[in-house]
């Protein structure tokens, strides 16, 4: 028999028992559906993450963090926050000296300090009531580290102080998506609550009166300090980081510098000593003076992280090793991708097992259907043998039928999952514009997935058909013809 004859015959025989064929195929459909959806979802998310990293030129960047241990076991993002927090004893300070050293490493083209997590309650557009979760990244804008694409307005310079480049989420939140140029020149208000102290920008904190009590300090705690920044540009960022807003690190350093009044009792003590020495009672209490204290976080604790740009992505490993040798923590996009792959492998394994069980059950369905078919067609097998069919021909006939069940299961699984992907994208698009997932790629169906699924379900069919086919081929033709 020829290949086409097998297919024709399989088709004809399967259409004899339409409902049974339908049920068997739907079991395979459900099994393959779960496998396809999981793979396409994972690829979709993975691809967009990779796109993001590539668009950020992340594969030529090395992130240096103060703590060599903190990143072990993963969790470090490309742009790590974390400043001012307690550092472990192994941590090394990422100050300007460190920046200079790192910048001088071989293969490093440039370096920028990164500051994030600036003390802030919330931020909003001036004259608007809707507040946004603060998300600020401070960096040295005139380095070659980031190619920050700007969709409208201009980029930051190292002289910009109270200027901000907002992310595209900002446009969405305040309804400027269709006319982003109109947001330029508007002000962003940072709402800060710092108790009795203030950042080294804008008004000084109120001097505490000599009789400052708890009530006065409580009032200070509730006091909102408003810092304004002029919007000079809108970043062209991807859906993952569209909530990020950017400022110059020099300004961030001012904002991160805590200014407060402190009592200076040296004059009073001098006065008291003098009065004791001279045995002359003097009221020294009024000699207390207030001194303005400045506490520069970046100088004291160092920057949150430093990002280095390599001359060539191939040199990332060399740079990482050099940085690690100096006792800093180090992470690259490759580390991130590795972490990502580990997570995806975990999720994939769990979903794979679920899909595998579904397909296994479906395979048993095929075996059942085919065993039934061989029983029903014993006489027919006898006739075919009498007409010149070899054992191999009979075996192939039944194997083709089983393979076809698997194949159609794969086809319907694919069609259904593409449909579900489309519907899912529509729903997510309509109701969840704020979640940070790139929606246009929520499920992907690359050619290797399509062919892989069809090959896999067909293979399942072939394997399930093996036993019934061999059974059918083994039948003695004389007994088969006599079978009632």
């Amino acid at each position, binding site marked *: 028999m020829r290949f086409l004859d097998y297919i024709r015959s399989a088709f004809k025989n399967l259409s004899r028992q339409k409902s049974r064929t339908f049920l068997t195929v739907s079991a395979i459909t459900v099994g393959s559906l779960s496998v396809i959806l999981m793979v396409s979802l994972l690829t979709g998310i993975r691809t967009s993450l990779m796109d993001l990293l590539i668009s950020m030129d992340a594969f030529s960047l090395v992130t240096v963090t103060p703590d060599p241990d903190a990143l072990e076991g993963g969790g470090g993002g490309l742009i790590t926050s974390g400043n001012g927090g307690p550092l472990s004893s192994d941590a090394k300070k990422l100050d300007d000296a460190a920046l200079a050293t790192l910048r001088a490493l071989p293969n490093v083209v440039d370096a920028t300090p990164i500051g994030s997590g600036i003390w802030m309650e919330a931020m909003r557009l001036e004259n608007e009531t809707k507040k946004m979760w603060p998300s600020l990244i401070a960096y040295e804008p005139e380095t070659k580290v980031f190619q920050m694409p700007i969709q409208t307005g201009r980029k930051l310079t190292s002289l910009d102080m109270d200027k901000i480049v907002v992310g595209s989420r900002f446009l969405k939140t305040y309804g400027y998506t269709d006319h982003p140029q109109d947001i330029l020149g508007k002000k962003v208000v940072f709402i800060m609550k710092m108790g009795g102290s203030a950042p080294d920008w804008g008004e000084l904190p109120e001097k505490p009166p000599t009789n400052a009590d708890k009530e006065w300090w409580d009032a200070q705690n509730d006091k909102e300090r408003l810092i304004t920044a002029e919007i000079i540009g809108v970043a062209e960022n991807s859906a993952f980081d569209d909530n990020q807003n950017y400022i110059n690190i020099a300004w961030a350093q001012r904002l991160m510098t805590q200014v407060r009044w402190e009592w200076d009792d040296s004059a009073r003590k001098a006065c008291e000593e003098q009065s004791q020495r001279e045995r002359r009672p003097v009221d020294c209490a009024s000699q207390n003076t207030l001194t303005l204290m400045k506490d520069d976080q970046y100088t004291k604790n160092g920057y949150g992280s430093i990002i280095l740009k390599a001359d060539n992505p191939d040199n990332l490993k060399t740079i990482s090793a050099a940085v690690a040798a100096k006792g800093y923590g180090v992470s690259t996009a490759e580390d991130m991708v590795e972490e990502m792959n580990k997570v995806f492998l975990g999720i994939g394994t769990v979903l794979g097992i679920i899909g595998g069980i579904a397909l296994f059950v479906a395979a048993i369905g095929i075996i059942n259907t085919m065993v039934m078919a061989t029983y029903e067609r014993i006489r027919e097998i006898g006739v075919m043998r009498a007409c*010149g069919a070899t054992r191999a021909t009979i075996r192939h006939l039944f194997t083709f039928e089983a393979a076809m069940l698997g194949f159609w299961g794969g086809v319907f699984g694919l069609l259904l999952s593409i449909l579900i992907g489309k519907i899912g994208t529509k729903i997510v698009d309509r109701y969840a514009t704020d979640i940070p997932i790139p929606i246009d790629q929520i499920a992907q169906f690359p050619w290797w997935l399509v062919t892989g699924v069809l090959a896999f379900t067909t293979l399942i069919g072939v394997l399930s058909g093996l036993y019934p086919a061999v059974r059918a081929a083994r039948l003695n033709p004389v007994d088969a013809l006599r079978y009632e």
Partner: protein
Amino acid sequence: MIELKNVSKVYELGGEKIYALNRVNLTIADGDFLAITGPSGSGKSTLANIIGGLDTPDSGDVTVDDQSLAEAHDRALSHYRNKMVGFVFQNFNLQPNYTALENVMVPLTFAKMDLADRKKRATECLKIVGLGDRMKHRPGELSGGQRQRVCIARALANNPKMIIADEPTGNLDTKKSAEIVSILKDLNRKLGVTIIVITHDPRVAGEAKKKLTITDGKIR
């Protein structure tokens, strides 16, 4: 020429050996029309199956045109059945979901013939048995006699050397039986096909050129 030498076939039934065929020697010349009769269980069907290559003897040898069947393996035997033998069954054994034409095409498919050639040849065969106007009918839409004629057309498809008909008229009335026998006689006379008919019906046996009777696995 078909030759059987000392052919035996033994079945075991409850520990007792039963000879379906016991040292049978038989020669059938090309173009013969042979009727085999005998009581039920005498071994006539076994004889026919062995000649047709569906069954193999336990001892002895069968040669067809000097080629031995006894030692042949599945592939060779299947090829032999496909090219040299046409089977006609008492209960027709047609595919219920196939049309008459498709049923006749079955042995041609196993012969790896082109689809167009298959259709052409199957049409010819149906015309030979007088069913040129029933080609698109399924077995359920045909009478018993017509079904048996489809079965003969299928047996004829690959231009076989012989047609083996096991009780071809067992399920038919007298008139239809006569029709089938006359078709077989025609094939024998016009195409020179060797016909081996197993039958209980003395009228069918009476039409054959030769007749032999089997009892207890032996030719009398």
